[in-house]
C-alpha cells in the first residue's frame, strides 16, 4: 500500500481544507479527513479502481461533510475557531460559512468546490451536475450568496 501513503501525504491538507470550509470546525474537519482516507484505504485494499484520485477524494469529502451537517443541523458560532486563522479573518470566515449554510445543498457544494479552484469538468465528476449547467448555477449561486451576506 505504498500508493496509499503517497496519496495520504499529497492530499491530506487539501481534504482537510475542503472539510473545514464545509464545517468551520477544526476537530470535525480532522475527523472527516480521517474518515475520507479510511474509506480510500478500504477501497484500495479491496483493489477497487479509482480513476481520478483528487475528484474521488473531493466527492467523498463533500458527501461526508454534508451528511455530517445534516446530522448535527446547526453549529453554533464559537465552533468556527481555527488555530490557523486570526480573529478578524475568522469573523469573515464565519460570515461566509453562515451564509453558505442558508443555501440549498447543490449551490453550497458547488460554491465550496469552486473556492478550491476545481475545473468544471471535475465539478461534473464530483457532483453529477451537467457541464452545461455549471456556469449558470455558479453565477446565480454567487449572487445569492452575496445577497445572504448583505442581509
Amino acid at each position, binding site marked *: 500500500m505504498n500508493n*496509499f*501513503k503517497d496519496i*495520504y*501525504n499529497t492530499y*491530506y*491538507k*487539501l481534504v*482537510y*481544507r475542503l472539510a*473545514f*470550509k464545509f464545517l468551520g470546525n477544526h*476537530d470535525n474537519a*480532522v*475527523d472527516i479527513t*480521517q*474518515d475520507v*482516507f*479510511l474509506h480510500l*484505504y478500504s477501497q484500495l485494499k479491496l483493489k477497487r479502481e479509482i480513476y481520478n484520485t483528487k475528484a474521488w477524494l473531493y466527492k467523498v469529502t463533500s458527501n461526508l461533510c454534508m451528511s455530517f451537517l445534516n*446530522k*448535527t*443541523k*446547526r*453549529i*453554533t458560532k464559537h465552533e468556527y475557531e*481555527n*488555530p*490557523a*486563522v486570526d480573529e478578524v*479573518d*475568522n469573523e*469573515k*470566515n464565519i*460570515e*461566509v*460559512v453562515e451564509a*453558505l449554510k442558508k443555501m440549498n445543498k447543490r449551490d453550497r457544494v458547488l*460554491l*465550496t468546490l*469552486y*473556492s478550491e479552484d476545481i*475545473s*468544471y469538468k471535475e465539478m461534473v465528476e464530483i457532483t453529477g451536475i451537467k457541464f452545461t449547467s*455549471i*456556469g*449558470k448555477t*455558479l*453565477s*446565480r449561486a*454567487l*449572487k445569492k*450568496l*452575496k445577497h445572504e451576506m448583505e442581509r
Partner: protein
Amino acid sequence: MKWKGNNSKCMSDEMIQMYIDNEIDEFEKAGMEKHFAECENCNLRLYEQKKLIFDFKQSISLVNIESIEIPEFKHEKTPVIARKKYRLFYWKWAAAAAILIASSLFIYKKHNTNIQDDVRYIIFDMSSEVDANKPLHEQSMSIYIIDKSGKQIENNINNL
C-alpha cells in the same frame, strides 16, 4: 451558447461566469473580448462578477493549511472518548438519554449476547445542539459505543 441582453451581442451571466473561469473555447473567447471592449454595460458586469468571485474566494480561503500537521494515518476509527467534552448544562438531557439507552441496550443485549463482552463505554454526545424548547425526540444527539480497545463500534443513533 445563448447570447442574451438588450443588444443581441450582449453576454448572459452564464457566459460571463464561464469567461472568468476560462471554461470557454478560444474562438468564443475572442468574440467576447471584442464585445467587452465595445460594450460598457457588459464590461461593468464582467468587473462586478470578478469582484464577487474574488471576495468569495478570499473570505472562505482563510485557513492556512501550511500550519496544519498531517497526523499519522490510523487504520481504525479514532477513539472518540478522549476528545468529547461534557458540559454540566446538559446533565438533564444526558440523564434522560441514559435511561433511554439503558433500556434500548437491554433490548439489544437480548438479541445479541456477545455485546456485553465487547462494550466498554457508551458515550452520549449532546454537545452538538440542544434547544430546550424542543421535545427530546427532536434533539440531535450522538451515541458512541466503544469496545475494550477503545475502538468505536457503533455510533450516531440519532434522534431517538
